[in-house]
C-alpha cells in the first residue's frame, strides 16, 4: 500500500506502523462519572466497519508523524490522509 503523507508525499506503507481505529484519539475524561465504563469502551470496543475506516498509522521509519488515514477495509482504497495532531486538535483535544 502507499500512504500519501500530508508532509512527505506518497510513502510505502512498510515505513509505517499500524495502531488501529482513530477513535483511540478520543480518550475519555478520567474524572467523568462513568470513566470506568467509558475507558472500557474506548480501550476495547471497535466498530470494525466493512467499508470506510479511519485509522492511525505511525511513520516510524520516517518523520514520526502519527497520521489518520481514511481507508476502505473492503478495497484498501485510501481517500484521505491527515496529521493525527490536526485531527486531535479539531476534535477539541488540547493538553
Amino acid at each position, binding site marked *: 500500500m502507499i500512504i500519501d503523507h500530508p508532509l512527505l508525499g506518497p510513502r510505502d*506503507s512498510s515505513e509505517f506502523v499500524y495502531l*488501529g*481505529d482513530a477513535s483511540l484519539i478520543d480518550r475519555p475524561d478520567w474524572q467523568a462519572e462513568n470513566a470506568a465504563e467509558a475507558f472500557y469502551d474506548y*480501550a476495547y*470496543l*471497535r466498530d*470494525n*466497519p466493512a467499508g470506510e475506516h479511519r485509522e492511525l498509522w505511525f511513520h516510524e521509519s520516517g518523520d514520526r508523524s502519527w497520521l489518520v488515514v481514511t*481507508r476502505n477495509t473492503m478495497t*484498501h482504497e485510501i481517500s484521505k490522509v491527515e496529521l493525527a495532531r490536526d485531527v486531535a486538535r479539531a476534535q477539541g483535544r488540547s493538553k
Partner: protein
Amino acid sequence: MRYSGFKVIKEALTGHKGWKPAWRDPEPKAQYDVVVIGGGGHGLATAHYLAKVYGQRNVAVIEKGWIGGGNVGRNTTIIRSNYLLDGNEPFYEFSLKLWEGLEQDLNYNAMVSQRGIINLIHSDAQRDAFTRRGNAMILNGADAELLDAEQVRKEYPYLNFNDARFPIKGGLMQRRGGTVRHDAVAWGYARSADSHGVDIIQNCEVTGFRIEDGKCLGVETSKGFIGAGKVGCAVAGNSGRVMGMADIRLPIESHVLQAFVSEGLKPVLPGVITFGAGHFYVSQSDKGGLVFGGDIDGYNTYAQRGNLPVVEDVCEGGMALMPMIGRARLLRMWGGIMDMSMDGSPIIDRTPVEGLYFNGGWCYGGFKATPASGYCFAHLLARNEPHPTATAYRLDRFRTGRMIDEKGAGNQPNLH
C-alpha cells in the same frame, strides 16, 4: 451411509453408482430450535455436537456462500494444545482430545496427523517462558517436552545451526500436535450433522436479526425470515459485520492472515516447526506441499488478500530458519480474515440480546479449536451455561479485567 474401505471397494466394483450426496441441499424451514449462522468449521461442528451430544436436531446451519469457505478452508491446518494460561489450556487440550477421536466420531477421515509441533527457542528468556508453558501444559494433562539444541538438531538437522542470526537454543515440543486435512473437517462435520437431521443451507446470507423486546426471534436472510428459538453466531472474521446487525459492538478487529503453499515435494518435514525469532511456521502436507505462514498483515481489512511486505517477511523467516527450502517454489498464497480479539483469546458467550449467542474472536488459532469450539458452543446453546472448559471466554471479561492474554500484548489486536 457408512464410509469404509469395504464400501470404497464395493463402489469401485459397481461403477460408483451408490455414492450419495455427503449432505442434503434443503430449503429452510420456517422455524428451528437453533439456527447457527456460519457454515464454517465452528458452525458445522456446533451443529454436529448439538445433534449428536445434546440431542437437538431441529437445527439449521445457514451459510452465505459454500460451506467450509471461510477460515476452515484457508488456514495452515495445525492442531496443538500448547497454551500457557488457565483460561485456554484446558479448552485446547479438550479440543486436541476431540481431534484424536474425530475420524471415528464422524466416520470421515480428516487425516488427523499427530506428527509433533515444535516451538523453537532462541534466548534464555524464551526458554524460561516455554518452560513455564510446558509445565502449564503438563499440569493441565497435556504433553510437552523441552528439547535442547542438540535434540532439536537430531530431529531437524537441516535447520540453520551454522550461521543463524538468532541461534536455535532448543524447543518446546508437543508430540501430540500436528496437522489435519482442513477442508475435510468442514465436510466431515457437515455430513455428520446432516445425517443427524441438521439442515445445512448454503448460499443463504443473513441480512438482519429480528429482535423484539430485547429477544432474538430469528434471522432475516436472502431466503426469507427464519425463526429460531436460539441463534448462534459463528462467523469469525466477519463477526463485526454480523453482530453489527444486532447493534452489538465487539472487542474485535478484522485482520488478514496470509498463508502459503509450495509446489509438491518429496517428504522433508515430518512435523510442524514454529520459528521463535521471526514470523514463520511450516509443515508439509500429505500431498507434499510445504504449508507455511507468518504474521498478519496488521491493518483492519475484510479483503481476503494481503500484500507483498508480509510475503517477503514470511519467506525471510523461512530462509533464516531452513535455508534448504530456497529453491522450493511458492505456489499459491491466500488470505483469511481473522477476528483479532483484544486479548488474543476467543469469546463463547451469551450476548446482551436474549436468545443470541456469540462465538468468535479466534484470532489465528481458530482451526485447532474447531472441535472444542463446536462442542462448547453447542453446550452453551443447549444448556444456556458455559461448558466447563470454556468458562473464561466471557464477553464481559474486558470490562472486569479478566483478560486471557497469552502474549501479553494488551488491547492491540494486531499484536496478538
